[in-house]
């Protein structure tokens, strides 16, 4: 059993449902089309490191539309903006993982799983010896590689659960 298998079967399944249910119950509808979700799922599978860029682009597009929209349409577009903001916070790159307004993200999960020697890399200091600097640079490089690898495996696994749960909620909303 790999880490991604286990998380996909437990934490990612639970988080995807919880995060989406919270948002959709709050806004009272499913704001984005199926085709956008298919696009999100495809990006997550093929270019996991581009999910936040894709979501940012969708979010900006909705914001531009909202500027000139009538009041009723603007409310619908705000729901769409909220949806893509959630996607950004769940997938955002590691530099933002520490200050995300959400309490959980795939990135934060990755930081929790970092190997011990990559967790607390000392900050760069002026009085470091050449050996210390080289050692620190190597640790930083290994940390970045490890985190990129994490993203490549875990972003697709999480968004598989996320997109499926959204489609399920949308299907059930159409039924009611």
């Amino acid at each position: 059993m790999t880490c991604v298998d286990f998380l996909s079967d437990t934490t990612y399944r639970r988080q995807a449902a919880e995060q989406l249910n919270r948002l959709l119950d709050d806004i009272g509808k499913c704001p984005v089309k199926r085709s956008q979700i298919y696009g999100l799922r495809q990006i997550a599978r093929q270019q996991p490191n581009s999910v936040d860029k894709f979501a940012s682009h969708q979010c900006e597009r909705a914001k531009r539309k909202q500027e000139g929209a009538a009041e009723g349409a603007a409310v619908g577009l705000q729901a769409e903006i909220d949806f893509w903001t959630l996607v950004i916070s769940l997938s955002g790159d590691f530099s933002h993982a520490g200050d995300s307004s959400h309490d959980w993200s795939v990135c934060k999960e990755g930081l929790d799983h970092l190997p011990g020697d990559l967790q607390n890399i000392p900050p760069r200091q002026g009085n470091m010896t050449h050996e210390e600097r080289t050692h620190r640079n190597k640790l930083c490089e290994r940390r970045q590689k490890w985190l990129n690898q994490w993203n490549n495996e875990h972003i697709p696994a999480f968004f598989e659960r996320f997109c499926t749960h959204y489609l399920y909620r949308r299907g059930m909303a159409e039924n009611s």
Partner: protein
Amino acid sequence: MNVLCSKLIQESDRYIDENHETFSELGRRFFETFCYDKRNSRINTQIRNLQQIVCSATRFADIEDFVKNQMGKERGNEKRWKTLGDDVLAGLEQLRQESQNLDTDPANQMALRLRLARGWVRAVVSEYLYRVARDQMGDAA
């Protein structure tokens, strides 16, 4: 995949036996909901698809996602899935719960979930096929 000890295998098999009636009831509902192609005597592909995903999945959540995906579709069999999909998901949730009752080790729980799901789908599909056969015998008589 984690190898389960014989004690856990026995306990999971006992759970499947004890709940056979409940699983069969779901098989009966699958028959009523999806029926089969009477002209060509072909069973509904959704049943085979469900069986296939349960037997090949390496993650239990992939089985749950299969049901959710079917229920979330815009066209096709989604209306039929919507009538019993939530009960299927509730049944799967019970299997998930049982895997946690049987053992505390996460790797064992994953393997147990899949084992329970395979026992579950055997009972569901068997009942469905039995109903199909009875229906065909009734037609022939």
